[in-house]
């Protein structure tokens, strides 16, 4: 919060006074001297106009907190004067999330607030895919004369969540023997019945299916399937080349962040170890882990880390160094799910390198190239070439049409692998 600043809007009123004074003296008109006095009063007015710091709070209510893509959401904002002095001139600008656009009415309002009173107004935004947080609102307060102005921000936590549920994730069938290391011969937690097979000499006695023996007098051994969990790192491509969008939809980084959110929840729900990384304006890294606290920490990173900012960065000069850092930090045998629109060749090379280094890579790629102009058709062809190149290197690519929920695209890709 800064202090009050002068707006200098009353500058010049003394000129009127001086003019009246000069003419009045020159032409000997005392009435003009009286007029000069009026000008002086107006010049003194801003100096004696009192100013005090306001205490404002903002609350919002949404017509729909989890809208569908493209749905109109009405935001009702209430600004309250919590101080004990009136606010004579409040110019309020609500913090609409940068990725959303206002389609009806205005997020700006002027209000005069007595102590304790509030003003409510509403406007409508169009929802786009992803989670959108409201930014701190800007409040400009002026005193009665308008000569002093204070610009401050008012924070109110509100979020619009426009993501769909995901029910399968594109994991490759390579696992980590995490649970196996913990278990010994004892039957304990984490074991699931798999199948029975014919008894072989030397099998452990507590693995024999005695119930079956009692029924049929045949010896059979039960095989348990050890619970397998996976070490996964979600890698989001947030470089400037990835901030592509079709004409009116959210850009690819926003889509990738939303997809990362869904994958995160689903993978952690399956009791895997999940981490997060991003290449872009700033390197983002959240080490693998699981549990509720880890989920919250990772979601927090997705929502607030600078790398995922909705406004694109200006350059990509650190991408090689960030790739190096990523390679250093990746845990052994971790799977990498790369979320990228595949808008340049660097990321394709990077994905193939990671795969060659021993980190199996799967790719989820939102298709944000609309082939309507010649240049865009070329870009679409280049992109599909990249997808082919990745698939030729045995890296599965889920091509995601943003108009369709992610889960459906993943299921479609899976069907293609198996067939």
């Amino acid at each position, binding site marked *: 919060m800064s202090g009050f600043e002068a707006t200098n809007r009353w500058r010049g*009123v003394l000129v009127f006074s001086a003019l009246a004074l000069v003419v009045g003296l020159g*032409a000997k008109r005392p009435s003009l001297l009286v007029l000069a006095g009026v000008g002086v009063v107006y010049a003194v007015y801003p*100096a004696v106009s009192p100013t005090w710091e306001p205490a404002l709070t903002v609350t919002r209510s949404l017509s729909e907190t989890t809208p569908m893509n493209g749905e109109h959401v009405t935001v009702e904002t209430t600004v309250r004067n919590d101080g004990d002095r009136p606010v004579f001139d409040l110019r309020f600008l609500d913090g609409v999330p940068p990725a959303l*656009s206002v389609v009806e009415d205005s997020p700006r309002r*002027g209000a005069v607030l007595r102590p304790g009173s509030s003003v409510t107004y509403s406007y409508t935004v169009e929802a786009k895919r992803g989670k959108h947080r409201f930014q701190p609102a800007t409040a400009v307060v002026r005193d009665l004369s308008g000569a002093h102005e204070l610009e401050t921000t008012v924070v109110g936590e509100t979020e619009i969540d426009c993501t769909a549920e995901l029910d399968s994730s594109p994991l490759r069938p390579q696992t980590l023997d995490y649970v196996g290391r913990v278990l010994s011969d004892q039957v304990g937690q984490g074991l699931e019945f798999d199948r029975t097979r014919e008894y072989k000499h030397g099998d452990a006695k507590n693995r024999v299916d005695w119930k079956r023996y009692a029924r049929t007098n045949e010896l059979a051994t039960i095989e348990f399937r050890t619970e397998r969990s996976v070490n996964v790192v979600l890698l989001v491509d947030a470089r400037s080349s990835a901030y592509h969008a079709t004409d009116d939809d959210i850009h690819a980084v926003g889509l990738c962040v939303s997809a990362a959110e869904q994958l995160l929840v689903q993978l952690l729900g399956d009791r895997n170890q999940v981490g997060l990384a991003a290449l872009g304006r700033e390197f983002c890294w959240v080490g693998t882990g699981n549990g509720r606290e880890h989920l919250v920490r990772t979601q927090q990173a997705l929502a607030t880390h600078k790398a995922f900012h909705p406004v694109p960065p200006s350059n990509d000069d650190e991408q090689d160094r960030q790739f190096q850092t990523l390679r250093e930090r990746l845990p052994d045998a971790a799977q990498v799910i790369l979320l990228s629109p595949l808008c340049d060749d660097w990321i394709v090379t990077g994905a193939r390198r990671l795969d060659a280094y021993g980190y199996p890579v799967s790719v989820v790629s939102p298709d944000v190239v609309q082939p309507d102009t010649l240049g865009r058709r070329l870009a679409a062809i280049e992109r599909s070439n990249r997808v082919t190149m990745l698939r030729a290197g045995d890296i599965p690519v889920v091509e995601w049409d943003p108009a369709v929920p992610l889960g459906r695209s993943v299921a479609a890709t899976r069907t293609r692998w198996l067939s």
Partner: protein
Amino acid sequence: MTDAVTVPKRPAWGSSLLAVIVLAFAVSRVGHEAAVATGLGIEVAGLVVVAVGASLVRRGHRLVGLPLAVGGIAVVGLGICYVLMLLARPPALLDVVPGLLGVALVGIALVPVRGRGSRWSLRVGVALAFLGVLASAVLQETTPGVQLLAGTLCIVAWDLGENAISVGTQLGRRARTWSIEAVHGVATLVVAWLAIRLSRVASGVQPPTTSLSAFVLLVVAVLVLTAALHD
């Protein structure tokens, strides 16, 4: 294509209209003939037509808006010429014409004809009207009471116009801003009334015929003090 709305940062129309009307009223008091009042009425009507035309053009209806705006400007010119032709006394050119031009300039500043409104045009317009008031005092065409009222109203009009531009720049025309404009306008009018009363009292203390120089020195002293306060 999204239906996103853009924020038009043009001056708030309530304060703008009030500023033009207040200034027109001040000029009509200075030029106390009926022709002046009629001419000013024509001018203000022309400015309203220009405003409507300009907003239509901005919304894309060029075919209707452009002729309307041009027609409005023609009406404003018509109003000025009307007064010039019908004015009985030649010296009135000095105190009425600046006022007429001033109203036109203020209207052009606030419609706005260009971008977010023009503070420069507003200032020049009000200054011209004020010069008209001073000229009327020199030529002794008006009573001291009228000069005081008209001069004060010039300052009030300037304040209203300036506030309209700043509200427009910060909030835009789509937002509801009448409450802050009203509070600011009322405060300015209260100060105007106070200033007129104080000045009347001050002038009543010293009779205008004696110790004019002492009174002048007093006013100069207050001016110097105020300038020091400003910095």
